[in-house]
């Protein structure tokens, strides 16, 4: 017989406290009947003797200490999964919000997952062509990588992410085994619609699963939304051998929700009020990306976060950068200049690219070209600050060539159209064309035979 508890001891923010409970399990799901009609669910987050603290997914509005009855399910939060989830839309706790019925399946998975054994992982090696020159050449995305986009409010990260998903060419992926899992945490309705529309125009909507928690939905569901999304992704990738791209937006809202709950739990805060376990918590999301030796599928994770005040040292981008395998950083200045995508290449990085490029995957000159463009562009920055002081006219001839190189790199290489999909060969050739503004003697990162083969001697300098 299922016991029901009729009296709540305390309600505070999203949390409720019950007392006199026996046999409650840490992390189990509870059902809360409010009044006669409504049922909400919650999760136990702390047990203290016979006292239980639970967070309520749909929020505590309308609950009083004596109008609710609570029953325990004995199970952790899990979602039913089958391939039928493709094309569907769910909320942050995995309930359908597209008007259709819940998926029926005997496969139910705990949304918290379990850590992948490092021994079972397969090291990601295959290059994904995104069609963006800056990303493909300089911070190559690898199948099974987690590569976040660090953006700021008002910058073009949505467009970038949507175009990336549309254009991504994954090795081994066909129309049948490719899926996109989209998790939205605390986003505006129009942002969620934007993604849906762009998946629709790309004709991939049948391959997309969405877990949407909008800005006005309960914050507790914001904590579970990315976990539902990744549980679905793990199911598709590791049980059905699919190549899955997961887009999570916006991780900043997620972390803020975590902070809100932490403060309601009266925990000791660390940097900027975020809980001390923010790093561990974020890692249980990001580390679910990857590949396994035991199957063909892959999870490539692209989380998007908005840096508060464009500050890359803020705890959220900072801790993210320590977990993810690189980052794509967007830049306000480039964005204002109208450069799309406004990718700031110097702080951007892909840690896995070293093993996924070169003759075997892209082209022999890729690594050297990447290193040379970085070194030269970093010099452009120094010369620009010098030019601001002494004026462009007083610069040496070489320095002026560097400025030309910088302008062209931003204007023609980084910038591209919203429907422009460049192949890796086009991208690398373009890179050489622009690099050839500089005289050969400046190319100190390049092997001589590559210069012989690719340098554009016909360019005017």
């Amino acid at each position, binding site marked *: 017989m299922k016991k029901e508890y009729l009296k709540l001891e305390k309600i505070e923010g999203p949390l409720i406290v019950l007392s006199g409970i026996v046999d409650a399990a840490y992390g189990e799901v509870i059902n809360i009947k409010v009044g006669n009609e409504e049922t909400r669910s919650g999760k136990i987050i702390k047990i*203290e003797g016979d006292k239980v603290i639970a967070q309520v997914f749909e929020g505590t509005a309308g609950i009083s200490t004596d109008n609710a009855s609570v029953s325990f399910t004995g199970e952790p939060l899990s979602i039913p999964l089958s391939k039928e989830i493709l094309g569907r839309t769910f909320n942050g706790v995995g309930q359908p919000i597209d008007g259709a019925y819940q998926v029926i399946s005997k496969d139910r998975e705990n949304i918290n997952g379990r850590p992948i054994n490092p021994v079972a992982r397969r090291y990601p090696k295959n290059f994904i062509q995104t069609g963006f020159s800056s990303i493909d050449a300089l911070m190559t995305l690898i199948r099974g990588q987690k590569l976040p986009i660090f953006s700021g409010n008002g910058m073009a990260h949505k467009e970038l992410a949507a175009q990336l998903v549309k254009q991504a060419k994954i090795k081994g992926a066909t129309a049948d085994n490719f899926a996109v899992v989209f998790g939205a945490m605390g986003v505006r309705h129009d942002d969620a619609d934007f993604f849906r529309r762009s998946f629709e125009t790309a004709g991939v909507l049948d391959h997309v699963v969405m877990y949407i928690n909008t800005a006005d939905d309960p914050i507790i569901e914001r904590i579970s939304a990315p976990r539902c999304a990744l549980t679905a992704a793990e199911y598709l990738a590791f049980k059905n051998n699919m190549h899955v791209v997961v887009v999570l937006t916006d991780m900043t809202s997620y972390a803020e929700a975590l902070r809100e709950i932490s403060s309601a739990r009266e925990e000791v805060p660390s940097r900027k009020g975020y809980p001390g376990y923010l790093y561990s918590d974020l890692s249980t999301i990001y580390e679910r990306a990857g590949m396994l030796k035991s199957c063909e599928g892959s999870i490539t994770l692209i989380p998007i976060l908005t840096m508060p005040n464009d500050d890359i040292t803020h705890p959220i981008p900072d801790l993210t950068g320590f*977990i993810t395998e690189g980052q794509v950083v967007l830049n306000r200045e480039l964005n204002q200049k109208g450069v799309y995508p406004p990718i700031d290449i110097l702080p951007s990085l892909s840690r896995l690219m070293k093993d996924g490029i070169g003759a075997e995957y892209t082209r022999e000159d890729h690594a050297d070209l990447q290193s040379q463009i970085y070194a030269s562009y970093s010099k452009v920055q120094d010369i620009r600050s010098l030019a601001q002081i002494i004026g462009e006219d007083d610069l040496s001839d070489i320095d002026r060539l560097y400025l030309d190189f910088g302008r062209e790199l931003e204007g023609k290489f980084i910038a591209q159209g919203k429907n422009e999909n460049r192949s890796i060969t086009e991208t690398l050739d373009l890179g050489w064309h622009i690099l050839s503004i500089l005289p050969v003697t400046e190319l100190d990162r390049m092997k001589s035979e590559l210069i012989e083969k690719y340098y554009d001697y016909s360019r005017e300098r």
Partner: protein
Amino acid sequence: MTNIQGIVSSINGPVVKGLNMGSFKVHEMVTVGKQKLIGEVVSIEGEIATVQVYEETEGLKAGEIIYSTGTPLSVTLGPGMIGNIFDGIQRPLEKIQDMSKDFIPEGIGLLSLDMEKAWDVTVTVNVGDKLNPGDVYATIQETHRILHKMLVPYNVKGTVKKAQPSGKYTLNDIIVVLEKDNTETVELTLCTKWPVRKPRPMKERLPIYRPLITGQRVIDSFYPIAKGGTIGLPGGFGTGKTVTQHQLAKWSDADIIVYIGCGERGNEMTDVLEEFPKLIDPRTNRPLMERTVLIANTSNMPVAAREASIYTGITMAEYYRDMGYDVAIMADSTSRWAEALREISGRLEEMPAEEGYPAYLPSRLAEFYERAGCVKTLNGQEASITIIGAVSPPGGDFSEPVTENTKRFVSGFLALDKKLAYARHYPAINYLTSYSGYVDMLADWYEQNVASDMLELRHKMIVLLQEDEKLNEIVQLVGEDVLPNDQALVLETARMIKKGFLQQNALHAEDSYVTLEKQYKMLKCIDNFYEEALKCVKMGIPISVIRKESVIQDIMKIKYDIPNDKLELLDDLNERIVKTFADLRLKYE
């Protein structure tokens, strides 16, 4: 005493409180609940004890039983550790994979070394031999290069009463029986247990005098690491901490490497696992995996086990040190370990100090780094443990508590710099703010084994780089062209040091590891260039003319063009440098 039982009363993440636990001991290992989760008692107040649990506590209920094991959190030490990969509490990950496939579940119990495997044991004692603590009683060829020596425990002394003949034995077989003076007997097997939080004893500490050769130019030539030393390696994300740690693990001339992946990325450990078995040690021509122990507690694995992983690693290192080996530990990253301390401390509701870290952070860091050192082992051999701890300061800010406190307890500090990393100057070790407290201690060694003027040369180069830094401030305001020629030469030479010497390509076959001899000769070439060019400048030859000489490009490309085994080419280059500038001077006379 496994019959004492506590009762779970409260659960908060990895922190569990139990009633009826007054007779448990602090730091005792316990198993919690029906799933037998592994935990450790961290504090006791009256009948209530606080336990940190090394596995996921989801599903645990109040009222479940906490069982005592009677022993503190320990590791099993014996053959089979090298080439293996463990989690933070020494459970072999490969075995876990056999049991549960791709993911790590909770409740798999306490595993450690393979107890079934039979090893070829050579018993080195005979009946009647008198043995002292630390004496060898048997040896096992653990890998091609590591001879595993079984040592008499530190508190045992006696006469051999029984000794098995050499042959195949498993870890729990009794090899030798010792009779102590009080006629008590002690059975010695092929493994021993040791509590991780307790340093293993040694005879005495020895002064540091040998360098740990890493093949990395900025380290060996500029900021050397000593065998038995402690090094902090801080850097924000993207500055190449992990690549640097991997390079050190690959090329250091230690006998054994213990690599602790503490709260870092899963794929990085996979990378090590895939790459190291393929890499060949330049000194022994054997795979690097034959000297490496890996501990992987990635960021998403339970946080309490991350806290333990550092201790597990250092205890294993001490065990091999006691056999007389030079061991180097790479801990990547100690910040994640400190964060684990903070997280658990928060759940214990302790009073936080700086940035939420517990007040005992500095003492814990000190305890860890003090387990390094050059020592005389119980059996009188010289051995060492070197600790290289990566630090991940939030936002790259070196004034945060973990970096600050680490600085207090390490003697070497290799600061990774974001600006260098952005310019893809790798390794991005800042050549001005880094320091090594070992230069003086190693001076004799360098003089005898490299060259008498090596340290002098080093000093000269650092001074040039400092001057370059100052000049660059001026250049940023007025441009390079207005500098007088001698100062422009400093810039040119510094550029040469930075690009031709300090930058080192970890992915380049020839450049990844460079012998000290080549490092010295490279510096010599740069110095030669500077002195010769300076003579020209003093004669009034403009720097623009000097810059046109092709030897400059040759010096810059030494690292790629001249292999480690063809150093005579460098002597030719030196002659060419002298000749080039002598010819130049002739032209202007």
